[in-house]
């Protein structure tokens, strides 16, 4: 390092040392002046005072010197920027390509990061959310209302509130003739006091007016609900809504960017104060239905409060030993950030985002490789200019800094483009309707976090793209550069640029292979037989208010509804179930075989009514399906699917065998009366599962809640029956909220994750390939330009144009082959973990996919090389020989 850059480094990092040196220097000067004064005849004290006077303000001198240093740094930077901008303007095409490449890479990264943040890390809208904690206490994740009140009264927290927000938290909203099931959050009276949220309209309820004992009927709307269902009615406040058949007063509307405490973008539409209509078992100490959120008191840590809470919890366990069994656990979790992640529950989503982050990171890497390649070529063409600057004394460090500033300008242009790209992508993404049972709203704002991330990426990109080219362009072996000897005949293959392009090809291949795997998965799922009829079936999800009927009333209602439906013209049959396959419901149960072995198994469970299997067109292989006589009071029966039969009744006829169902004090002996063909249960891509079916009239909830109906139509136009079915259900009970669909539409849910992954990876893979091909084109063109002299000589010596073309092609394709080989190896090694996200039956090491992608890559690369090599065909040997 030259003395100059050392000096500058010194000024930055050893400022105090430099200051001390300056002080010493000035002291020396002063002493010399005093000596001179004494030599001229003054007395020592006079000499000193004269010298000091002459010296002026020492501090001022020091300050001036410091100023020089500061100005210099800024001056240098501005000079670098000006010079760099001028230099870049001369090669505008390069700037555009580089900025666009970087923009796409950075834009994709920012979008994925903001999505990741919104889904997994974002916290609720609240006052001082860093003091909020999720509180889990007792013997389960949720707690009962009486226990919650006791904990609240222990005054351990600044304040403690409770809420209920399960996916089944639907209330029936009656608007005119229509009743709709609306996803809501039930909250304790002090909830909004604790959260400290400001509504944009009206107010929230205070702790006093909303006590459950006073049977409050108060509701607050989300912004989305107010817009979508009420058309942003200006007279919303004070309006009375019919919820579950009772009147509720609207107190206020929450702000547009409100984030709920549930996370994952889940957005309840109604916030209702807890009361006994909504939760009939509110005062049961043993019922666990509420989640808690608390505000830590000032200065207390989570650990301290958790320890104190544990004592209170144990005391409650002792006070109520029957209701609060095993009342021990205490867990406090942050409401946002990494602390919030839920271990195993969040694992698939985390995996999903990890894959996405790696993918967009790879795309950015490819873009950086492109830009680095472009900068290397640029540096090579500027070798003369740089050599001259080095010769007249500019330090190497200075030039490297200037080249890096140029790269910084490029990176900043690219980052700006990237932010623009992210803004557009975010606007598009939030419009995509997600086929999930609860309303989801993502807030993908470009806030300070994203900007910081963008700046970090910008700096990283600058270093990755610019450092090596800058260092290489300023290497000290300058004499050949000055004399224009560009080592024409030493044709090195292993140049940095070539390695970069090979790397790009490898990465593109990995992306394309991954995308093809998901595409294959999609096709497999598309052709999977779900096991039941989807072309002629209609489904209806009914939602009754809790305790709408007594048990016998409910039975009557259900029977009448089903009979009426099956008697409609064009309807073959109808049946009921607690929920349908492929509807996000996954309930397992534990049963034991009744026999000497008492083997235990863990099948999925579904509660279905009579004629269910014939309506769904699922073949009964042995025995019978449920009938009307399988009801309360009759013998307990069950039906199993063939996988369960195969696993546990391999050599025998399962019909007639008994199972022990339930645990503890409530076990029953159930007799198997039939075996049915396998159907899919949760996803289309799943492996075969054991399923146990129980009769609805014996195990179903007949007093309220959700019921699903299936209807088999005749003919090929199931959609035409929708109005008739809707009318029939409405006539059966007008207070019920229901949705009717054709089965095929329901299945769209199942395809969604795979479709999304395929599209995303496909786009990223194509992008990566495009960037790689641009890089390849650049490298080949550059090689042709550099070898013009050599080509001229070859042609003068008798080589035909075709032979020259073949030579160039061979060079380009060998590069691609090297990259492709590495890419295939990496794909083979690294795609293993993806099998968790792919459909069953799709092998990650599928030779067909690998070969197909490699072939496509080869053809695209050949095309790119040919285009670049076209120039070599047009070389005139005579002018080529003169070319310097």
């Amino acid at each position, binding site marked *: 390092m*030259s*003395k*100059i850059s050392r*000096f*500058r480094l010194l000024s930055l990092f050893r400022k105090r040392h430099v200051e001390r*040196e*300056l002080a*010493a*220097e*000035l002291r*020396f*000067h002063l*002493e*010399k*002046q005093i000596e001179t004064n004494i030599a001229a005849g003054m007395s020592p004290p006079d000499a000193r005072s004269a010298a000091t006077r*002459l*010296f*002026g*303000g020492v501090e*001022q*001198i020091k300050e*001036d*010197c410091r*100023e*020089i*240093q500061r100005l*210099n740094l800024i001056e240098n930077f501005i000079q670098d920027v000006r010079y760099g901008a001028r230099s870049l303007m001369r090669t505008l095409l390069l700037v555009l390509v580089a900025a666009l490449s970087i923009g796409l890479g950075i834009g994709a990264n920012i979008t994925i990061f903001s999505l990741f943040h919104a889904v997994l890390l974002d916290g609720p809208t609240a006052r001082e959310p860093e003091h909020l904690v999720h509180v889990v206490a007792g013997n389960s994740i949720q707690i009962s209302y009486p226990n919650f009140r006791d904990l609240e009264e222990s005054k351990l927290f600044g304040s403690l509130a409770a809420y209920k927000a399960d996916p089944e938290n639907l209330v029936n909203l009656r608007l005119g003739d229509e009743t709709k099931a609306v996803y809501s959050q039930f909250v304790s009276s002090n909830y909004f006091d604790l959260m400290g949220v400001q509504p944009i309209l009206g107010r929230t309820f205070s702790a006093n007016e909303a006590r459950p004992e006073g049977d409050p009927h108060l509701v607050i709307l989300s912004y989305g609900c107010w817009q979508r269902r009420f058309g942003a009615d200006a007279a919303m406040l004070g309006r009375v809504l019919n919820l579950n058949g009772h009147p509720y007063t609207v107190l206020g509307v929450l702000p547009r960017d409100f984030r709920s405490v549930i996370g994952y973008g889940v957005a309840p539409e109604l916030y209702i104060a807890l009361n006994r209509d909504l939760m009939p078992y509110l005062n049961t100490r043993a019922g666990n239905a509420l989640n808690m959120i608390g505000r830590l008191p000032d200065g207390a840590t989570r650990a301290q409060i958790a320890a104190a809470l544990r004592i209170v919890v144990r005391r409650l366990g002792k006070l109520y030993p029957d209701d609060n069994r095993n009342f021990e656990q205490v867990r406090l979790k942050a409401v946002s950030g990494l602390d919030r992640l839920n271990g195993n529950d969040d694992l698939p989503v985390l995996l999903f985002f990890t894959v996405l982050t790696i993918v967009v990171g790879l795309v950015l890497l490819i873009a950086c490789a492109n830009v680095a390649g472009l900068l290397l070529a640029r540096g090579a063409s500027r070798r003369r200019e740089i050599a001259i600057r080095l010769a*007249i*004394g*500019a*330090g190497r460090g200075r030039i490297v800094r200037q080249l890096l500033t140029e790269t910084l300008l490029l990176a900043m242009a690219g980052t700006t483009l990237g932010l623009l790209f992210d803004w557009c992508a975010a606007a598009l993404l939030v419009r995509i309707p997600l086929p999930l049972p609860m309303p989801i709203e993502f807030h993908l704002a470009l806030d300070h976090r994203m900007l910081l991330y963008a700046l970090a990426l910008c700096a990283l990109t600058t270093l990755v793209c610019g450092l090596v080219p800058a260092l290489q362009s300023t290497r000290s072996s300058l004499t050949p550069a000055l004399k224009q000897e560009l080592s024409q005949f030493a044709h090195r293959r292993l140049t940095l640029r070539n390695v970069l392009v090979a790397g790009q090809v490898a990465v593109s291949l990995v992306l394309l292979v991954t995308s093809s795997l998901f595409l294959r998965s999609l096709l497999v799922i598309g052709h999977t037989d779900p096991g039941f009829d989807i072309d002629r079936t209609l489904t209806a999800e009914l939602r009754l208010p809790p305790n709408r009927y007594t048990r016998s009333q409910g039975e009557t209602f259900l029977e009448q509804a089903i009979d009426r439906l099956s008697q409609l013209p064009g309807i073959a049959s109808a049946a009921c179930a607690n929920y349908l396959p492929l509807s996000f419901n996954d309930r397992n149960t534990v049963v034991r075989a009744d026999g000497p072995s008492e083997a235990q198994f863990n099948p999925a469970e579904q509660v279905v009514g009579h004629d269910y299997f014939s309506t769904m067109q699922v073949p009964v292989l042995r025995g019978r399906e449920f009938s009307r006589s399988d009801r309360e009071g009759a013998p307990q029966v069950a039906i199993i699917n063939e996988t369960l039969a195969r696993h546990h009744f391999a050599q025998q006829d399962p019909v007639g065998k008994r199972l022990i169902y339930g645990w503890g004090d409530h076990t029953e002996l159930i007799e198997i009366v039939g075996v049915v063909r396998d159907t899919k249960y949760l996803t289309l891509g799943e492996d075969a599962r054991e399923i146990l079916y129980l009769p609805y009239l014996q195990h179903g909830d007949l007093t309220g809640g959700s019921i699903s109906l299936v209807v088999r139509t005749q003919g090929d136009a199931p959609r035409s029956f929708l109005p008739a079915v809707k009318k029939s259900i409405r006539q059966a009970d007008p207070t019920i909220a229901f949705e009717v669909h054709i089965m095929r539409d329901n299945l769209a849910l199942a395809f969604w994750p795979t479709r999304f992954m395929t599209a995303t990876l496909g786009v990223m893979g194509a992008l990566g390939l495009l960037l790689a091909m641009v890089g390849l084109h650049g490298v080949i063109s550059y090689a042709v330009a550099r070898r013009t002299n050599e080509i001229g000589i070859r042609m003068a010596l008798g080589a035909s144009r075709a032979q020259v073309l073949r030579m160039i092609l061979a060079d380009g394709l060998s590069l691609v082959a090297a990259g492709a080989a590495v890419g295939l190896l990496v794909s083979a090694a690294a795609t293993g973990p993806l099998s968790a996200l792919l459909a069953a039956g799709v092998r990650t090491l599928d030779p067909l996919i690998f070969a197909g992608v490699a072939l496509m890559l080869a053809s695209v690369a050949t095309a790119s090389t040919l285009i670049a090599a076209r120039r070599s065909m047009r070389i005139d040997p005579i002018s080529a020989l003169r070319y310097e």
Partner: protein
Amino acid sequence: MNSKADLLQGTLDLLILKTLALQTMHGWGIAQRIQQISQDVLQVQQGSLYPALRRLEQKGWIDAEWGDSDNNRKARFYRLTRAGRKQLELETSNWERLSAAVRQILETA
């Protein structure tokens, strides 16, 4: 504070470079030499000397090192670099052109 001629910044740089072209010396020495050779016409203020030396150092025209001076005291010695030598030539020719032009105008009036 001094009634003698104040030096413009660019001119001071030129004089410092010239002084160092002849010999390596410390800040005090530079000020003394300029004063001596100009026969007391030009007196360099410490307030302008040391910032000027810093500036020249940052531009890479002079180099500095601590060394022993008389009485075994430590002083910071400056010397001209190759780039500085080139700069000196440039500035000297500029100065000569400038002063020749000014002299012509003054003489013709």
